[in-house]
């Protein structure tokens, strides 16, 4: 507790709710985002992550509850709030008719920043996004990873204190993801507060100091990735595949052998602190899985425990 007293909440939400007609997209959530931290909203599609992001960006008005961003009220201080924020939308939404550098300059101009000032800022951001050589290409002609980096560079043009990233690495190949993570780490080192949504547990583990797990508009759990795993899962997981039609029958036999057991359509998950020992015991008992794997628990397991469903389906 003493820690949170010292920290400054840059975003504060209490009973935050958003309804579209009869549909409740965000259902009374409470959270704080502290300055300088990297905060993640983890959950499957439709969990309410993007809606929450939109309310923070003040382009979507909450239905009820409280929300302040840097102490400001989004309902009537939208432009002021957005001047503090960098926004990297889900599908990049680059200005495809414009060149790379023009994308940055025009976006800076929307904030009213002077051309002369932007000139040096744009160079700096091109460098940061590793796009200096691509400056004169149309945004449309860049690869997926480059487009995402351009979207991030664009989000940084107003020197924001808080950068909001909606699924920053969805659709990127592993190499492009790692480059992107590296860039985000650097921003964090510079003191930028990161708020990101993701449905990739490895991304949340890599990037986030603290996460909230969302499902159906509600917060299911909150904490650091390590805390959540400790609290909601075991140290290790044994994954066994016996074939689609056999998994269910075998699962019944395995009951009681581990702390917890989850039966998924394609595999059985056994939660234990001693994975190798459990696997050996199972093999010794005469069961022959098609494939077997011992791994560390991840946020995916936390999510499964909390909701009974997998994150990515």
């Amino acid at each position, binding site marked *: 507790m003493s820690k949170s007293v*010292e920290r*400054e909440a840059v975003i504060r939400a209490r009973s935050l709710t958003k309804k*579209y007609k009869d549909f409740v997209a965000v259902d009374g959530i409470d959270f704080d985002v502290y*300055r300088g931290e990297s905060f993640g909203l983890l959950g499957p599609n439709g969990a309410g992550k993007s809606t929450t992001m939109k309310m923070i*960006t003040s*382009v*979507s*008005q909450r239905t009820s509850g409280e929300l302040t961003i*840097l*102490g400001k009220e989004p309902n*009537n*201080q*939208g*432009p*002021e709030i*957005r*001047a*503090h*924020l960098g*926004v990297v*939308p889900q*599908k990049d*939404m*680059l*200005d*495809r*008719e*414009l*060149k790379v550098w*023009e994308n940055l300059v*025009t*976006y800076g*101009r*929307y*904030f*009213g*920043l*002077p051309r002369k*000032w932007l000139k040096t800022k744009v160079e700096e951001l091109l460098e940061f996004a590793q796009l200096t050589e691509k400056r004169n290409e*149309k945004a449309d002609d860049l690869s997926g990873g480059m487009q995402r980096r351009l979207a991030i560079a664009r989000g940084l043009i*107003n*020197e*924001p*204190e808080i950068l909001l990233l909606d699924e920053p690495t969805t659709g990127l190949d592993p190499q492009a993801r790692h480059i992107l993570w590296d860039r985000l780490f650097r921003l964090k080192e510079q003191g930028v507060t990161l708020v990101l949504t993701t449905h990739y547990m490895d991304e949340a583990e890599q990037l986030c100091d603290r996460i909230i797990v969302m499902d159906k508009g509600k917060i299911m759990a909150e904490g650091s990735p390590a805390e959540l795993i400790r609290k909601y899962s075991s140290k290790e997981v044994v994954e066994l595949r016996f074939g689609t039609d056999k998994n269910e029958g075998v699962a019944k036999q395995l009951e009681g052998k581990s702390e917890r057991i989850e039966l998924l359509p394609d595999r059985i998950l056994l939660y234990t602190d001693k994975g190798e020992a459990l696997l050996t015991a199972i093999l010794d008992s005469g069961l022959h899985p098609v494939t077997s794997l011992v791994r560390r628990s991840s946020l995916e397991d936390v999510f499964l425990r909390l909701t009974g469903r997998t994150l990515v389906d």
Partner: protein
Amino acid sequence: MITQTLITQAVAIAEKRAKRPGASVYSGRAMTMIERSLYAAKSSNWLIIISGFVEPVLYLMAFGFGIGQLIGDIQDGSGNPVSYAAYIAPALLATSAMNGALYDATWNVFFKMHFSKVYQVMLSSSLGPMDVALGEISWALIRGATYSVGFMAIAWPLGLVTSAWGLLAIPAATLIAFGFASIGMAITSYMKNFQQMNWVNFFLLPMFLFSGTFFPVSVYPEWIQVIVKALPLCQGVDLVRSLMLGIIDISVLGHIAYFVVMIVLGLSFTTVRLKALFMR
């Protein structure tokens, strides 16, 4: 330990502006939208842009000088003889302004709303919906005004402007373009698919042909005249024709008022609609 919130340039600019009323809708930076359009225009297809300008010129040649030969002189509103080409030239100037404005305010806006999603991005900066509306409408009106200047550059040397009032046809055409751009963007913002967009075209062709463009509205029965005169192009044609032929009376003010109302309505509806679409 509470650290001070950073006052960057962008923040300072936004906070200065925030003291004014309406700051959440309008930041006073519609101009930056025009800058964006200039960048985009550099790479757009100039043939398409020029073709929009050429169309009314072709009508002038075919009807004014072609069919005009068969018709000879006709009487203008105040009973003076005037060549057929000089009679239709003002109408075609007004049409130029309309076409130019509508190209950008309808199809291009439709594309940006539903496909390229640039408005969403603009609205996540500190621009407001009215900046976006005014910026886009202004760009469309610039195109309309440019077309009419181009048309004038052809009509004037051909002797089709018979009055010094004709100089005012350019600002008049700009006003007409502004009106059509505003209403055009407002209507487009309600359109959901291409079929609906085609209805716009379906409406435009008859309006072009029957708004007193090629023959006086007085040929219609009384009740049709009332409807036709209420159409925006007919108002524009009357306005430009009065100026180019030098028949100035109180009705000119009426036409101007008509377009001012059109601009205010179009701009308001577009702003409200952008907010409803992208800030809900």
